[in-house]
């Protein structure tokens, strides 16, 4: 998943939590208070609250409090998905081509929607509708595309999803993709949607299930009672939800989410006010103030990675030495400062983040040991040496100008300008274009035909805790697409592809993690991008809030947070 707008931090598998940035993240505590209203304040609004379409950190905070996918995560353990709508773990067949899930027997939908228990057919419909152009789920084809019959799915029935009875789901796959598929069942696409109720909403594009989420049939502890896009969202208790069926405590009675508040104003209100938490990333000035004066009201949750993609398919970055020169010449300390300095994250030395399985095998914090990544502030001498090796005797690049397309929102625009300065130091003439996030992706960085040479504002968050979710989409040659491409450097390398195939086939966790670490080493050595940041997302709360962070989402878990007495 792309950083900055989309988010779902997974990870896990690492040997110990110590030193991976997980210390000090508030989890559930004993004797939390029940009742009361929590105010969430954010600048950004929601993108999709339809569980079939949602794919964004902000949206997930609401979707996972109002819906129950087959599996989800406890806030303090993102390594193992726990059964949610499912009644027990998923069973993967020996050949890896069949996955069976039994669902909870007596769960119901929120009042006023459907007055019958949740059935396995509802999950089937939920996944099927994701393939249609009305719901248009973004990841359905990546993780559910190996279901039998999914390749031609247009929103209609998919043969590979069978419901032998009202409690059982059998998924049949065309490839032995079972273990990875089972992990993907924690994505919100598996939250049940009753077909006889939702079909009429799904006739219109966009579905009213998304544009007016109050009509949804909820299964989670909360329902969306009120929603004004770009302004306000209100959650209230779901009267038919039973705590005996769920691992979520759901302490709060009500959540009022205000959207469109300036990040500085929001931050000040939260730090000095009552009953408030942030919904999206607080402003740097607020982070600085909280760290200096209100340390107990701020915490940092590790998230994904950020890197500068260099287009390996066009000159001059089709030459590995030019790429290595750029990696060497980049001042990653200055880049780190654009996102809030050391507290907000570490200077990256490779791609797998500290919380990812295989981080140690990939070199840990010190990195894999390549000379072009040795100095965080950049190393001009090394850069010049690589440029000389690439055929620029002066040690300065002297070819035609290069196109750099970045994100114009704060602080990404700062990052892009530091990248520009770094390239200029090496002699590059740079045409920098800064655009709205979506424009940058959908017209430029995601489209190989646009021939953008450098995309300075990309990054990755895994969809679930596995090396596959970290490295396949960004670096495997199979994930290069003419549109919506996620392999931004367009890396086509047989060694990388082979190493990924090998890692994917390993089931033993420690060996699998090592194999992914090896993939990362190979990728880093090819320098398809400049890894520069492993994020830690700041979250702030008012003094009287007992906030709990969902580590998998690096944001507050509304079903676990509570007020303090």
């Amino acid at each position, binding site marked *: 998943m792309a950083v900055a707008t989309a988010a779902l931090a997974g990870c896990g598998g690492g040997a110990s939590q110590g030193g991976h940035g997980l210390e000090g993240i508030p989890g559930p505590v004993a004797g939390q208070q029940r009742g009361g209203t929590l105010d969430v304040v954010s600048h950004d609004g929601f993108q999709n609250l339809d569980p079939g379409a949602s794919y964004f950190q902000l949206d997930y905070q609401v979707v996972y409090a109002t819906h129950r996918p087959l599996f989800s995560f406890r806030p303090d353990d993102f390594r193992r998905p726990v059964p949610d709508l499912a009644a027990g773990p998923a069973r993967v067949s020996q050949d890896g081509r069949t996955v069976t899930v039994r669902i909870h027997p007596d769960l119901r939908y929120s009042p006023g929607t459907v007055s019958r228990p949740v059935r396995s057919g509802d999950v089937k419909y939920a996944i099927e509708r994701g*393939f249609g152009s009305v719901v248009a789920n973004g990841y*359905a084809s990546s993780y559910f595309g190996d279901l039998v019959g999914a390749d031609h799915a247009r929103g209609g029935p998919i043969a590979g999803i069978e419901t032998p009875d009202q409690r059982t789901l059998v998924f049949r796959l065309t490839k032995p993709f079972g273990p990875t598929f089972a992990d993907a069942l924690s994505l919100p696409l598996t939250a049940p949607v009753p077909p006889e109720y939702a079909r009429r909403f799904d006739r219109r594009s966009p579905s009213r299930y998304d544009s007016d989420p109050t009509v949804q049939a909820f299964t989670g502890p909360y329902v969306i009672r009120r929603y004004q896009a770009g302004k306000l969202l209100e959650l209230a208790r779901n009267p038919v939800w039973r705590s005996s069926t769920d691992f979520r405590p759901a302490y709060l009675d009500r959540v009022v989410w205000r959207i469109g508040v300036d990040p500085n*104003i929001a931050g000040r209100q939260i730090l000095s006010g009552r009953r408030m938490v942030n919904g999206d990333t607080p402003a740097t000035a607020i982070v600085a103030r909280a760290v200096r004066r209100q340390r107990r009201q701020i915490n940092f949750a590790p998230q994904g990675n950020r890197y500068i993609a260099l287009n390996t398919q066009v000159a001059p970055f089709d030459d590995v030495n030019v790429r290595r020169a750029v990696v060497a010449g980049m001042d990653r300390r200055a880049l780190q400062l654009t996102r809030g300095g050391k507290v907000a994250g570490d200077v990256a030395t490779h791609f797998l983040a500290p919380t990812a399985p295989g981080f140690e095998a990939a070199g840990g914090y010190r990195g894999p040991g390549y000379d072009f990544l040795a100095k965080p502030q950049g190393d001009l001498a090394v850069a010049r040496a690589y440029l000389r090796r690439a055929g620029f005797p002066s040690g300065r690049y002297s070819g035609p100008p290069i196109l750099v397309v970045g994100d114009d929102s704060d602080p990404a625009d700062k990052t892009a300008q530091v990248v520009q300065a770094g390239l200029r130091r090496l002699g590059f003439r740079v045409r920098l274009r800064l655009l709205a996030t979506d424009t940058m992706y959908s017209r430029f960085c995601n489209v190989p035909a646009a021939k953008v040479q450098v995309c300075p504002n990309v990054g990755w968050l895994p969809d679930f805790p596995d090396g596959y979710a970290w490295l396949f989409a960004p670096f495997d040659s199979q994930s290069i697409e003419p549109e919506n491409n996620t392999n931004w450097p367009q890396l086509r390398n047989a060694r990388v592809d082979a190493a990924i195939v090998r890692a994917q086939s390993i089931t033993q966790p420690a060996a699998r993690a090592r194999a992914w670490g090896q993939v990362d080493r190979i990728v880093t050595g090819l320098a398809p991008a400049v890894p520069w940041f492993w994020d830690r997302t700041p979250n702030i709360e008012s003094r009287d809030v007992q906030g709990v962070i969902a580590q998998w989402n690096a944001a507050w878990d509304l079903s676990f947070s509570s007020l303090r007495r």
Partner: protein
Amino acid sequence: MAAYVLRRLGWTVIALLAVSAITFAIFYALPSADPAALRAGRQANPALIERIRHTLALDQPVYVQYWRYMKQVVAHFDFGFSYQDDAPVRQQILDRLPATISLTLGAVVVWLAIGLPVGIVSAIMRRRLVDRVSMGGALVAISAPVYWLGLLSLYLFSKDIGRLPLFDGAGTYEPISQDAGAWFGSLVMPWVVLAATFAAFYARLLRGNLSEAMGEDYVRTARAKGLPERRVVLNHGVRTAITPIVTVLGLDIGILLGGAILTETVFDVPGVGRLLFDAIQHADLPMIQGTVLFGAFFIVVANLVVDMAYALLDPRVRL
């Protein structure tokens, strides 16, 4: 009169059509983010994007798309859905309208209350100290960018960060129906800042018109008749000088109702202008198009109203 009204209405409709066609052409010919890719999400495959393109009629020629858009706008008052959050554009604009109306009308009161007296006094006291000081001040107010004045006043006077915390700061807007006190408090600074340049402009305009009027024959006649100066100024001078101001006022209100984008942005007032600003930040084209059309609607209607008022007051206009 009826013929004039009809003709004028006809022009209004044509103007609106032209505005809509131009904005549509701009956004069609110069697309930013790919709407189909946006709707599909980050990892969707190209086949899905192609189908969405078809559903949204993005594969049709521009005139077909324009026709479809206008049909929705005219028949259902439907401006489509935001790319950003799939919410209906019309609903969002209507939600934001009360804030914009509050900001505009309050500011109008403030600038008339300041601008008119200052203009009159300056005209009477021409070239004296009062006049020089107030016209100098007016020139400064006209020369200062409103968003900068806004930031400055927040820095100095807002309760949360101000050095002299007097007024509610940015982002404190409450609907009047929920809390009239908070509504008033939150709008004091935006009103004054928005009104500052308008007040200055109106004062200058009135001063100019009034001193011109004071030189006219009928004013001299009135003076010669021995009327007290107060009455000469107010009854004869101001009455003539005020007419162009009423015109300007009508147009200004029309423009501001379409969204006081700069002021709303600085003070985080959730109005139509702020909506447009956010839409620009996200390159959310249906939202930009909807708000621009909506703003154009108010301006064109304001022009119509002003012209009608003129025609009513001055029969010579109806040529």
